[in-house]
């Protein structure tokens, strides 16, 4: 690719000492716009199992939105307000849907052995998302400020204390749990989810097991030289 602008010379030639140029060049070679926002995908991506990733993301979005409202009005509002109760219900059911879709997505990816072809990190970031989501849900249950929270904190303290985690992660401390649930963990989950999705965009959807490489030029729509 050539450029008409001499000031962009460094983009493709020579070695730049500028961090910005180096980062931009690295980004553009790893995740160019047509990988980030593709309008084509491999023909083998033709199964309903593939929609469960985006459904999980959509549920995450609804969780965040309903959670934002709840965080604005505080953890006790929904006990006495019908509108609050409805927003709480949105949050509750979007979480149920989130885990349903995520687990089906996980099953699908397992049976497709989707970690093949240098995609181990995609699998691993997915598992971290899962585990971090478990933690987020757990702290969510703790901050309901109702009987369920009381019981869960009373029981969970034993498991966490037994392995020393209770020394600094106090499930009975509403302030700590609320901030972990509404600030810390959503940030962690958000960052890892973005990383996970970018990895999928970068490596593409995994090929079928025992897939055959297409080397016939007629099969290549991009028009570039294929692997032989």
């Amino acid at each position, binding site marked *: 690719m050539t450029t008409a602008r001499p000031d962009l010379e460094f983009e493709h030639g020579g070695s730049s000492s500028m961090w910005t140029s180096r980062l931009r060049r690295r980004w553009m070679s790893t995740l160019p716009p047509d990988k980030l*926002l*593709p*309008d*084509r995908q*491999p*023909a*083998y*991506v033709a*199964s309903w199992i593939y929609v469960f990733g*985006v*459904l999980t993301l*959509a549920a995450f979005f*609804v969780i965040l939105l*309903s959670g934002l409202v709840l965080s604005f009005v505080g953890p006790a509002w929904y*006990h006495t307000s019908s509108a609050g109760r*409805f927003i709480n219900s*949105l949050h*509750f*059911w*979007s979480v149920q*849907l989130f*885990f349903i879709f995520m687990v089906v997505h996980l099953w699908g990816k397992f049976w497709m052995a989707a*970690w*093949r072809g240098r995609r181990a990190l995609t*699998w691993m970031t997915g*598992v971290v998302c899962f585990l971090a989501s*478990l933690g987020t849900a757990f702290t969510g*249950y703790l901050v309901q400020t*109702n009987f*369920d*929270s*009381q*019981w869960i*904190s009373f029981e969970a303290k*034993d*498991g966490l*204390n*037994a*392995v*020393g*985690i209770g020394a600094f992660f*106090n499930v*009975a*401390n509403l*302030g700590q749990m*609320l901030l972990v649930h509404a600030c810390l963990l959503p940030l962690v989950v958000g960052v890892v989810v973005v990383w996970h999705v970018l990895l999928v965009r970068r490596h593409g959807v*995994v*090929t079928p*097991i025992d*897939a055959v*490489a297409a*080397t*016939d030029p*007629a*099969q*290549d*729509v991009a028009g*570039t030289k*294929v*692997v032989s």
Partner: protein
Amino acid sequence: MTARVSGADVAAQEWKGPSRRYDILKEGVVAIVVVSILTVLMAGMFGSPDEPQLTIKAWAANARDNFYATTVQELAGTSESAGYGPPYNTAGTGLSVGPLAPQKWFGVTHPVDPASDFVITPLHSQQQPADVAAALKRWEAASPDRQAAWATAFDTALTDADDDLTRVRAGDYGPVPALAKGLTAMAVSGALDGVLMAQGGFYQTDFTKQILFLGDGSYLDDAATAAHLQGDTWGMMNETGSYPGQAWLWLYSFWYQIPQFNSDNPDDYLTSHADAIIFYIMAVLSLGLLLLPFIPGLKSIPRWIPLHRLIWRDYYRQQSIDTSGAGGGDSSGDAGGSR
């Protein structure tokens, strides 16, 4: 001509084969709309669980004998909190599994002295009737050994009488009965909830003391049993009411159902150390899930049980057409992905 390259190599390469249209933005928007509608429908139809919080006032009002007996246990040091160990106190050493003893290593980080925090300090925070005030004075003037003797004697007598005050045998219990009576009165009035909440200050968000005290009695425990939330009845997965709970905790909950972790014998090693052992088991299994791509055997299961042949049936069908018809001629595969 279609060359047969190994599947592993193909997976690592950029796909140059047939493709199909894909509108990623549209997919995202449709997903959000569908999920939003589903969520609104379910929220509207079913609401969400919200079982009201238990209070110490309700405990003392509904299970007065148990509240009284628990107060005595706090003074005698026989309650669960009193003997817990880290991170609350040094009454116990905490659980250790082999060389692993993190509960002990991290020590006491949330100090709780049940006799003082749950009974004496709250009693001090309010004007008490003459007999309770006198009992407080007598308690604090006594040596720790004397206090222990009174409280233990009364605790034993009360237990022998099945928590029925009218049937407690006579004995030297010192000021303990009056202290317990005073605290019960405070609890029934609602004052104890407030006092434990404020803990002598103004702002606070730490409910450790309240939950430990509440949990020492039977009121919280009985409510949990009624709601099917006990650990040995898959309670970790359950929710109050008829709502779905945390089905995703099924494997964590599973270990607590195994008789070895669940025996009636408190001295049994596996039962007494269940919390630690099960946590380590789950940590190892989680690590296994994380590192699945590298674990021989496990990573081959999708190949041995070929569900993928269903998922990619169109691709495999086309692939067998291509290879059976190919020979030296043109592939009959479609260009551009149209079928």
